[in-house]
């Protein structure tokens, strides 16, 4: 790991809680208090583009949610991933809209599908689902309902159960 990602990791050394390298991709986990400073430091280091902002539900692991920021530097090209971990009962993250206005819709999408609230977002509403939708579909405990087959004489088997989930190490 060289270049801008390594420089950023060195610069954020105090804030980084965890550091992972997998397939030449650098992932830095920072705490929620340091997030905005870390993003600012990344932008100063040349990562001018917020390519993606998303979340992962790690249920049943704790802390439950990871908010993932993927940053891209254009010249020379480099990528780095920053992460924040939050608990389900305290799912709030400071908003990055002050740094990148383009984060606005991405944060609305994460709020819509995960229920993570972004503090300081100018207009946090649902974006993909109707305003009166209940629940947050990308959470792992959201019930998955599939359409029943409309004729008799077959054993009901929903598409997602045709190949069952096989946990690792089996």
């Amino acid at each position: 790991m060289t270049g801008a990602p390594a420089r950023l990791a060195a610069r954020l050394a105090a804030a980084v809680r965890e550091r992972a390298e997998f397939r030449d991709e650098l992932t830095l986990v920072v705490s929620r208090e340091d997030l905005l400073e870390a993003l600012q430091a990344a932008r100063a280091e040349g990562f001018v583009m917020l390519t993606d902002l998303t979340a992962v539900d790690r249920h049943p692991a704790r802390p439950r949610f990871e908010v993932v920021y993927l940053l891209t530097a254009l010249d020379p090209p480099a990528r780095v991933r920053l992460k924040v971990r939050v608990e389900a009962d305290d799912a709030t993250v400071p908003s990055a809209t002050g740094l990148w206005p383009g984060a606005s819709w991405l944060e609305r999408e994460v709020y819509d599908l995960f229920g993570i609230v972004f503090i300081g977002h100018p207009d946090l509403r649902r974006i993909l689902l109707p305003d009166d939708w209940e629940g947050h579909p990308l959470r792992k405990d959201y019930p998955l309902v599939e359409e029943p087959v409309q004729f008799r004489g077959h054993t009901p088997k929903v598409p997602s159960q045709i190949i069952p989930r096989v946990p690792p190490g089996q």
Partner: protein
Amino acid sequence: MAELTRETLVLNMGPQHPSTHGVLRLLLELEGEVIVGAHPVIGYLHTGFEKEMETRTYHQNIVFPPRIEYLATFIEEQAYVLAVEKLLGITAPPRAQTIRLILAELSRIASHLVYLGTAAIDLNVSSVFMYCFRDREQILDIFEMVSGQRMMHGYFRIGGLQWDLPEGFVPRVRAFLEELPRHLDEYEALLTDNLIWRRRTEGVAVLSADDALRYGCTGPVLRGSGVPYDVRKAFPYGGYDQYAFDIPVGRRGDAFDRYRVRMEEMRQSRRIVLQALDRLAPGPVMVDDPKVALPPRSELVRSMEAVIHHFKLVSEGIHPPPGEVYAAVESPRGEKGYYIVSDGSNRPVRVRVRSASFNNLQALPVMLYRGTVADVVVAIASIDIVLGDVDR
């Protein structure tokens, strides 16, 4: 939404409006004829692909990507299989990579032809619309010849391709590419120096380079504003670093520059395909890894081991190592990336589709500010959104 006062009028545009290129709804705030606010409303085509992908195995998920960005299906499939291959730490054989590249670049030409046709018919140039679809039809015929499908191919596999190219593929592609420059010149003759086209697109929907970066725009929208960022050059994938091609860049970031950038990209794609056809060497099109690729049919009658591998792959799928990867490709609309989190089981924990149209559409209010209602159509066409890509 500001209150409806005597000064501003709220005008609803869409989701059935023919020039919104899909189910996009725009709330426009008008002062007279000048737009002072635009609020895109999306989600009418939200299908829940990301949730759906968590409930299926990696192989089963191959059917979803082409349904997300349905105008450039091969590029979308390439993005997904590259992400899974990166997760597994394998690379497809050289012949498979070259074939992927040829089909992806043809997809790019096909997608830009749709852009050109729809942008033209939005300004009532219906002849160009028909010519573009005539050319796209030829590309779709080539795709049908390869994969048996015109749109939702499912031809790429994790680790390679479904099968090798059919007989007569190369001459047919060459014949099409022979014709293409003449057609492109014809469209340029009809549009580029056309006074109406110039007046309607020059200086309309201007997006500065700084704004484009802050809103996370990629693709022709960003390059039209003058930032030479292309995933094929910046983060080469699938062997693009071995091909000679240029990145067209605009200057002013208006609709006309984006049109010029896309026209040039079609010519560059043709250049890449011609080089790739010359380098197409015989060889396998699937990795030789029994944990990933299905064994050939002839092996199944001879070796018990092959039968076991086959059974495991069909009844369970592949088990990638735990970890997370992001792989991006350059789609006709910008950077299309797949972020996959794996926990080592046969299903992904999370698949995130980073779609270019979603971010590009965010910049629409910036482009429309102080424009007129007539410019809205031009602006939407110049972003070249695909609503399946926006809503996923």
